[in-house]
């Protein structure tokens, strides 16, 4: 069983990422409205024990890197009534992210 307490970040600030759209059984911290959406990494928040494992009495290793990802509100909601420049920031773990094509 892997026991890494810190994990190296594979994405850097400014990189475009897509959130995995996989369905989930059980606890996870990636809301459904962000799955399949594309955003930009705006911060690397560090590596943390995996909450999806901690929730089921596991020690939570390997640690997984948490990012702050910025999304355009208009890309999340089809009838978004606010400004076209509005954004939403969400904290998302690396195992939910793919590099997005430019």
């Amino acid at each position, binding site marked *: 069983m892997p026991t890494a307490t810190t994990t190296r970040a594979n994405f850097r600030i400014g990189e475009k990422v897509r959130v995995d759209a996989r*369905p989930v059984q059980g*606890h996870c911290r990636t*809301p459904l*409205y962000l*799955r399949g959406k594309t955003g930009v990494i705006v911060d690397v928040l560090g590596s943390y024990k995996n909450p999806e494992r901690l*929730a089921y009495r596991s020690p939570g290793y390997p640690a997984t890197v948490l990012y702050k990802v910025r999304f355009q509100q208009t890309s999340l909601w089809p009838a978004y009534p606010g400004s076209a420049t509005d954004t939403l920031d969400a904290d998302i773990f690396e195992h939910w992210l793919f590099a997005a094509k430019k």
Partner: protein
Amino acid sequence: MREPTRKTELRGGAGGRAVHDVGGLDFGPIDREEHDLALWEKRVDAMLVLLVGPKKDAFKLDMHRRMIEDYGQQTYDRTTYYEKWARSIRNLLVEQDILTRDEVEAMMADVTATHRNAGREVATDTIAWL
């Protein structure tokens, strides 16, 4: 006790939407009125903070979230914030072998009897274990 004001909204489907994951669904306007917490709600809050703290470390906050998300949809919508916490704390103390179900039931019967004997109104409904 404050009743939750939001309506129940069906959110099944193949998209993997869990009961708590309601972002983007229409539950009507948000109640923005400030309200005080009842004493029991403050106590439940304090209990959780102590139980997940480094000294007790009875369970992890992520387990608490999982337990709350395991609610059935209608029960989830009909219970208040701290009712969800109270049920989760009780269930996790049993799951972690800190208390047995019998011990919890015995304590609840004891407390109920004390209040009833003092002539206070006692709630008769119970929170399902599952």
